C-alpha cells in the first residue's frame, strides 16, 4: 500500500486543553482545510500527529522555509540516463494517495507555493501540475492542514486574504498552567512539583514577550529543562541551559530572566 511509512502506529501522547479534538474531527469529516495557529513549541505538531493516528490516516509533514517553491511541494523533473523523469513532491503524494498534508510555517514559503494550494482548498479539490500538464483530483482521504505562528511574522509575511479565508482555524496557546505541568511531567519524566515550578518559570519568560524577548519559553523548552532535571541537573542550571541561553543573547535580559528564575526556586 502507498504511504505505509507515513502511518502512525502508536498513539502519540496529546493532552487536550479544550474541545480541539472534537472540532478537528468534525472538520476532517467534511475535509475542511484547517490552520493551526500558535507560538512555537505549543503542541501543534503533536496535535496533528495525534489526530492522524486517531483518524487512521497517513500524515505527510512539510517544514516550509523561505527558499521553498511550488516545485518543492508539487514535484519536479529530474534527469536520469534516458532523459527527464518526474518526481512527485510531498503535497502531490498526499493528494494522490490520500494523506493529511501538514505544512508547517506556511507563511515562510514563497508566494507561488501558497497559491498552488488554492484549487486544493476550495470545492474543486484539484492539484494542477503545470509542468506535466496534469490535473490531480484529490483522494477522498486527503486533507490539508497548515500551521502558523501569528506573533512571529512581520506584517509583510502574512497569509494572503484569499488563502486565509479557505481555512478553518484552531487557536493554540500555551495550555493553562495545570495542564502544561501535566504535559511537562509526562514528557520529561519529572515529579509534578518540579513540573509546576518549570511552568511557573515559563510564565516568567512569557511575561517578557515583546519586551526583551521575541518569544517566551515554549512548552518544548520547559520539557527540555525537565529532561535535564530528570537526569540530575539542578533546576537552575537546567533552566539556564534549556531556556535562558537559547532564548536571548542580550546580557540584561539574561540577567533579568535568571534572577526571575531564581526567585521561583
Amino acid at each position, binding site marked *: 500500500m502507498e504511504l505505509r511509512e507515513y502511518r502512525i502506529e502508536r498513539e502519540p501522547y496529546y493532552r487536550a486543553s479544550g474541545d480541539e479534538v472534537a472540532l478537528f474531527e468534525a472538520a476532517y469529516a467534511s475535509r475542511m482545510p484547517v490552520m493551526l495557529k500558535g507560538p512555537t513549541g505549543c503542541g501543534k505538531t503533536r496535535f496533528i500527529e495525534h489526530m492522524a493516528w486517531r483518524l487512521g490516516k497517513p500524515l505527510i509533514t512539510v517544514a516550509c522555509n523561505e527558499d521553498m517553491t511550488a516545485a518543492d511541494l508539487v514535484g519536479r523533473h529530474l534527469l536520469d540516463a534516458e532523459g527527464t523523469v518526474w518526481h512527485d513532491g510531498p503535497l502531490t503524494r498526499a493528494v494522490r494517495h490520500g494523506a493529511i498534508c501538514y505544512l508547517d510555517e506556511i507563511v515562510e514559503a514563497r508566494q507561488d507555493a501558497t497559491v498552488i494550494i488554492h484549487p486544493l482548498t476550495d470545492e474543486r479539490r484539484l492539484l494542477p501540475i503545470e509542468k506535466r500538464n496534469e490535473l490531480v483530483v484529490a483522494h477522498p482521504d486527503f486533507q490539508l492542514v497548515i500551521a502558523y505562528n501569528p506573533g512571529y511574522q512581520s506584517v509583510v509575511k502574512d497569509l494572503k486574504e484569499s488563502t486565509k479565508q479557505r481555512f478553518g482555524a484552531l487557536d493554540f496557546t500555551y495550555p493553562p498552567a495545570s495542564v502544561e505541568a501535566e504535559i511537562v511531567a509526562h514528557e520529561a519524566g519529572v515529579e509534578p512539583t518540579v513540573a509546576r515550578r518549570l511552568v511557573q518559570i515559563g510564565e*516568567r519568560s512569557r511575561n517578557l514577550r515583546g519586551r526583551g524577548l521575541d518569544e517566551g519559553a515554549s512548552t518544548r523548552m520547559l520539557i527540555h529543562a525537565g529532561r535535564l532535571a530528570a537526569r540530575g541537573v539542578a533546576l537552575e542550571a537546567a533552566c539556564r541551559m534549556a531556556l535562558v541561553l537559547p532564548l536571548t543573547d542580550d546580557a540584561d535580559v539574561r540577567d533579568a530572566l535568571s534572577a526571575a528564575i531564581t526567585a521561583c526556586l
Partner: protein
Amino acid sequence: MSEVPPRPEEAYARIRAEGGAGELHFSDVERQLRHFLTALWGRDVPMRALSAGGDAPEARRSGFDGGVIRLPDALPALAGQPAEALFRASLAHLAAHLIFSRRQLARGLKPLLMAVVGLVEDARVEHLAMRAFPGLRRLWLPFHVAEPSGALIAADLMERLSRALIDPGYEDANHWVAKGRALFFDGKDQWEDPDFSLRVGGLLAGDLGKMRVGLNHKTYLVEPAYRDDNGGLWEFDTPPQVPPDDHDLPLEAMRAEPSEGQEPDEFDGAARNDPAAASAPAGEADPEAGVPVARYPEWDYRIGLQRPGFARVVECPAPPSSPALIDGLLARDPGMVRRVARLVRAAKFSRPERLRRQAEGETLDLDACVEAAVERRLGHAPDPRVHAATRRRFRDLSVLVLLDVSQSTNDPVSDPAGGAPTTVLALERHATALLAAAMAEAGDRFAVHAFCSNGREEVRYQRVKDFGDPYDNAAKARLGGLRGRYSTRMGTALRHAGRQIAGQPTHRRLVLLITDGEPSDIDSGDRRYLIEDTRKAVGELAGAGVDVFCVRLGGTSAADARDPARIFGGRNVLTVERLERLPDMLPQLYFRLTA
C-alpha cells in the same frame, strides 16, 4: 498634621556614605531591573532614578508614589552582596508593595505607630510575594543583619523584629520581638487583608510605647537598606509637590514650544543651495572653517528631557591629500582587497531573481534540457548546467560610512600580532578604503563622511564622498587627507548623518560608524551625558528606519565594549582589534543586517 517620615534620599545618602565600594549606577542596571520586574509580575511599572544629592526637588519623592517606582541613582555593595543584588532586592520589595499594599490615611497617626505598621506591612507584602516566588527570600535575607542585644532602643528592636519576621533561623529572646513574631505568624491566614498590618502594628506600637523606648523619628530609617521609607503607604494631608504623572508630560510640553530646534531646516537649505558656501566660507582665516548647517536636540538623561537645538553642526571642507596614499594602502595586500570585495558582493538585500543554466536549482531550465538532450543524441557530452534557480542578487542598500576623526584617533594602537604600530585613524582610513573600493565595485550607494567636535556649537562634519558622487581620485584624496582633531560628539553627528541618508530610496539604510571609542566633548564633564544622548540618537535613527552599526577599532578589553554595547545594542557593535580581522568580521555585520 502628621509628621512625614524621612525622605528616601536621606536614607540612600546614608547608605552611600557607608558604602562606596562596588557602586553601581541605576542606569547601568535599569534595563535589567525593568525586565526583572516584568518577568515576575507581568507589569511594566515606570521607574525613575532618585538623585541622592537631593538637588532636584522633583526627585524628592518616596519609593512608589503614583504608580512610579523611584530607585536611588547609585547603590554600593552592601552586606557582602553586590550592588546589583541591592538594586534587585529594593525593586522586588517595592514591587511587592505595588502589588499587595493599599494606601492608608495617615491623618492623626503618630510617627511611632506609622513606623511599626510599616514594618509589619513590609513583612506582610514580602511574605505574600514569597508565596508566589519563594526564591525572593534568598534575595532579601542577606541584608537582614540585626543581632540580638540588650539594648532597648526602638530602632534597634524594630530592625530585629524585621529580621525575625523573615528569617526562620533567627533567634531573639526579647519579649517584644517574640510577641511580634507570634502575632505575625499566628495571623498567617489574614495576610491577604491589607488591614492586618494596621491591627498587628497597632498592638506592637502600643507595647513599645509602654516600654518607654523612644523612637527618634527624625533620624529613624527603615532597615534593612533595600526597604523603602514606606512613604508610599500613607495618604498625607499635604498634596505631593509634583503631580504624579509628571514623567511624560514635560517632554511633550517642551517639544511644543517654539525653539531653536526649528532652525536647522533653514540653515540646511541655505547650505545645500549654495555648495560654494561649504567650500569657501566667508572668513578666509581658517581654510578649514565651516558653515553652520543644522541644529539638533540633545537628550539630557539627568532631567529626562530633550534640550532642543542644543548642538550645532558645522560642515567643513575635507582638505585633500594625494589619492596615491589610498591606492598605496590597498596595493599592500591585494588578497585582502579581494576578500573584502567578495564578502561585500555576497551580501544580498533584495528580492529574488531568476537565474538560468545553473548546475543546481529548484527547477529545470527547459531550453538547457533540450540542448543537453540534443547533445547526447549527437554523442557529445552535454552541458550539465540544466537547472534554473532563484537567488537574491540585487543590492538594495545604502551605506553611510561615518568616521570618527577626533584627536584620540591619533593614538597609536599596538598591533597584538606584533606588527608595526599604527594609529586608530590610519586603521579607520584603511578599513574605509577597503570597504569603499568593494562597495564602488559592487555598485552600492554609499557615502563617506567624517566628524569631530569642539563643543556643542561646533560639531564639525566633513564629506569625503557623497551618495551621488563617484568614488574617484578626488574622494580618495579627501579620505587620505583626514586628520584627527578635537572631540567626539557622537549623538549629534549621528543625527546629522541620519538626515543625510534618510532620503536614500533603498530598502535598507545603514550608518556604519567607525570609531575608537566612546563619545566625549570638552564642554561635557559628565561622561554619561553624551553616552546617553548617543544612545537616544541611535534610537531615533532606528525609528526613522536607519540602522546604526558601530565598528570599534583598536580597543580590545571587554570593559571597553560595555558602553558601545549599551549605546548601539550588543548585536550592533563589532570590535576589530586588527585590520586583518576585518574580513572575518564583515560577514557578521552583513549577517546581522540581513537576519
